[in-house]
């Protein structure tokens, strides 16, 4: 079950493509005993690129960069199969109502800009006398380049010029052209097509503009800025060191924080938390403000670890630190001076506190509980599947699922779940989940600490993958160094960045190399991002089946 992680420098098989060798630090064959002292590694297998719609947030960011603040007219909602909106964007076609929303969105945002003389003048940069004068043409070329994330072709330029020329009023004409470009599939989607690699048949290399777009949407969750487009225009992303220089610039830019937040929101499944609803009758202190605070504290914890501490990101499971505002402090039973409805105060918890990392926070505890009682099964399932990337097989058909059967005397939840584990049809899978979930039993379904369960003592003993533990604190400490956690986070981020499920048969070498680089970088999240985007799998794709 555990993936063995080899250090990144071992795979210097000189049969590999030069760029891959460069990634692995093996480019200079004359140096380093590492280059010759280790057995050759399996070769990376490349897979076809994805063709994905920009997620709704990415599209909004792109439009904001193009037009400024235009509000948020409705757009189709993203879906998140396998946790990630980027996967929904590469698999689900837009619906008819979705396409209509893009049309209405384009009408609304162009109305907002072009109906205001000052605003449209600022956008265009000059006053067009006619729709085909130099002012209008320069604007269409520039706007097109930023919207398409590449220079327009001559045909495209002529097309939008002719759309503009259909109106006698140059402002109406330019508005039409902008509205059309914003709906163009070249803008709404992102390609990873590339062109054939002269050195290896069947392999395509993304062109510099596709690569720039891919980098920008993955690292910034928005389109490329002018500097990145300039680098692509000049071919610098194909030059030695050019890609690394851009990636390092982008990782050092504050725009990376939104994409990191987006990844953790989806990896931690906060959309499901948003839909959670503990019973206010059972938990009178449950309020929308408390729920919002739980969402915020989760992202604050991640942000601090990744950006203020630049620490081993696996500590999101172990560190005894919480960010609480006033309602959260009350809920967690903490006395925190300075906390207010809008002020989240960092609090260091005792090193042996049960409330360890994100798994000790309300979002995880609530979304994996029922309205009135905890669910060790759901909590365990989340840890096993999300954090360790183990799969739990489906339940058998036609099983007795009623755990509340009257048996004469009241049973604890643990006793009821024991029935699962006594029944051979259920035990194999529940044994993977429930013992881990029991470790959280000191936290009720609202995420609050409880010393006992309605007078009955709490038993928070359990296990992770057969290793017995007592309490959530011990679990958090174990996860922070567990050999599966780094490779699993690698897999999740790789799925997020590539917008599709990885194929174990084809991509295990790629994933091992990336998680090796992640480990070598001290498991800092930036090291994972860097390893994913600099890996050859980010810029080389297999040719589409028909084109091979």
């Amino acid at each position: 079950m555990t993936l063995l992680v080899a250090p990144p420098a071992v795979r210097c098989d000189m049969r590999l493509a030069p760029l891959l060798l460069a990634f692995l630090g093996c480019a200079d064959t004359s140096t380093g005993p590492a280059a010759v002292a280790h057995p050759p590694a399996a070769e990376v297998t490349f897979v076809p690129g994805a063709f994905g719609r920009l997620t709704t947030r990415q599209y909004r960011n792109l439009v904001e960069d193009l037009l400024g603040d235009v509000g948020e007219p409705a757009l189709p909602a993203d879906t998140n199969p396998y946790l990630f909106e980027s996967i929904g964007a590469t698999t689900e076609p837009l619906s008819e109502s979705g396409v209509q929303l893009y049309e209405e969105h384009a009408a609304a945002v162009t109305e907002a800009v072009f109906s205001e003389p000052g605003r449209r003048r600022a956008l265009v940069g000059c006053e067009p006398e006619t729709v085909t004068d130099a002012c209008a043409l320069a604007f269409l070329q520039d706007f097109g380049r930023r919207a398409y994330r590449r220079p327009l072709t001559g045909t495209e330029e002529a097309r939008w010029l002719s759309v503009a020329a259909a109106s006698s009023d140059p402002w109406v004409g330019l508005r039409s052209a902008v509205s059309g470009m914003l709906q163009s599939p070249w803008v709404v989607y992102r390609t990873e097509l590339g062109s054939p690699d002269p050195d290896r048949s069947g392999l395509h290399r993304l062109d510099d503009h596709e690569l720039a777009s891919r980098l920008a949407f993955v690292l910034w969750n928005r389109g490329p800025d002018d500097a990145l487009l300039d680098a692509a225009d000049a071919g610098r992303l194909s030059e030695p060191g050019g890609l690394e220089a851009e990636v390092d610039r982008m990782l050092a830019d504050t725009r990376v924080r939104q994409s990191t937040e987006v990844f953790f929101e989806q990896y931690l499944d906060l959309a499901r938390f948003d839909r959670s609803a503990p019973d206010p009758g059972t938990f009178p202190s449950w309020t929308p403000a408390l729920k919002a605070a739980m969402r915020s504290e989760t992202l604050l914890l991640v942000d601090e670890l990744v950006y203020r501490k630049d620490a081993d990101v696996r500590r999101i499971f172990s560190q005894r630190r919480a960010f609480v505002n006033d309602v959260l402090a009350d809920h967690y039973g903490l006395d925190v001076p300075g906390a207010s409805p809008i002020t989240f105060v960092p609090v260091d918890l005792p090193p042996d506190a049960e409330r360890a990392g994100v798994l000790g926070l309300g979002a995880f505890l609530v979304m994996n509980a029922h309205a009135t009682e905890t669910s060790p099964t759901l909590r365990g399932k989340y840890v096993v599947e999300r954090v360790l990337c183990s799969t739990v097989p489906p339940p058998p058909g036609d099983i007795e699922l009623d755990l509340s059967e009257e048996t004469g005397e009241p049973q604890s939840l643990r006793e009821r779940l024991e029935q699962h584990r006594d029944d051979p049809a259920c035990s194999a899978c529940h044994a993977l989940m429930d013992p881990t979930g029991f470790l959280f039993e000191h936290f009720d379904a609202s995420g609050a600490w409880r010393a006992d369960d309605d007078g009955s003592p709490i038993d928070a003993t359990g296990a992770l993958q057969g290793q017995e533990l007592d309490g959530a604190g011990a679990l958090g400490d174990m996860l922070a160094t567990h050999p599966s956690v780094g490779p699993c986070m690698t897999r999740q981020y790789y799925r997020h960045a590539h917008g599709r499920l990885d194929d174990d048969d084809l991509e295990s070498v790629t994933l091992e190399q990336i998680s090796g680089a992640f480990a070598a970088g001290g498991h800092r999240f930036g090291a994972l991002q860097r390893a994913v985007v600099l890996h050859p799998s980010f810029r080389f794709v297999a040719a589409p089946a028909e084109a091979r």
Partner: protein
Amino acid sequence: MTRPTLSRRTFLRGAARGASVALALPTLEAMLPRTARADEGGLGPIFGVFFWANGLPWHAGHGSAQAGPPDLWTPGETGAGFTPSALQAPLAGHPFSVVTGLTPWTDIPDSPAGQGDGHMRGFMVALTSDRPRSEGFDHPTHTLTARRQTIDQVVARDARFIGDRQTRFRSLELGVSTARFHDYGHWNAISYNGPDALNPPEVDPGRLYDRLFGAPTGDAEAGRRAALLDAVVDDAASLRARLGADDKARLDAHLEHLFEVQRRLALDDIACDDPGRPSTGGDLLSQTGIMAELLATGLACNLTRAFSFMLTSPATTHAFTEVGVVTDMHTVCHAGTWEDVHAITEVQMTCFGRFLDALASRVDPLGDSLLDRALIYGTSEYGEGYKHGVSEMPVVLAGRADGRLVPGVHVRDPGGNMARAHLTILRGLGLATPSFGFSGSETTEGFDELLA
């Protein structure tokens, strides 16, 4: 799997049990057969799916008195003039027939595991007469898709159904509850154009109002917007030429939708009664009323003739606090009490009744209501939520389909093929269909006793 071998005829028209025939509906007139109006040059029939989540309260058996929780769904009598069961009481003021005992006949591939799960197999057969697609099926993450379009789209895209009476919207997809088991796949929508191609429902009354009654049409501004879409389509050609087959199919779906959007923008405005901007909020029943009234107003001015109405999404996590059940419905079905599931199902059936009220209340000058023109297919993802049991799928066929559908009949067909319900629907809408069903459920037999 083994196929049930019982003859359906055994169970028809109450013959098996010699059940007494009683007219229990309040208006005698409602039960009388009507002359088919389909060929009178009217607006054409309306087809709609009404979907509710998590089936029916569990019980030990169907159709007969039994120990344990009672069967409050299956009517005690079969044939014409049956007395609606307790759970069907909210529908009883309206013309409807019911078929009980149906089940998926679709095969269950061994791999990947879990394709027999009721939420998945039952849903797919209820909406497509097929099984889930095996490719990409993943039970642990509940990821799956349909193999083909759902019955609402089969009808909406049938050239014979459209005829020369093309409406502003080929179909509409509406929903009420926003509770979701997941944010992807059929857990948040019940209408498919094909694999992965979901038609997500509009659940916001204000946005539905804008879409139906507020969109610009027919004027110069709409003309400008429509015209520039030609350039958008042209612009896609250079992209399309470079895509692989699957990606090209997704882009083509986008472009096809773009043509529809363009067509709508260019249409002349239609005179509709403005129902006024709707209120929002309230419990599930009042929200159902708001969405159903908007839909009915749109149907009355012929904005569409095909729709789906998702009261609650499959495996819904909706909490029916209005009847004191604070735990989400999916959990209640698994680990709650029969009484709670019963109370929840009563609410959902009351909503179904409220929905039918809206269609029945719109009467044209000839005295025919929208419900007289409509065939409404009411169904859920399985029979019983307790075990995800699919042995007794709920099937309600409400309305008169312009006189082609016979209301007031209970057909009981234990172990019968669910695809027969779909075949009956297609024929009831006047769409001659020799056979229907897929992956083992192929059939040439509809329920003739439901067709005039």
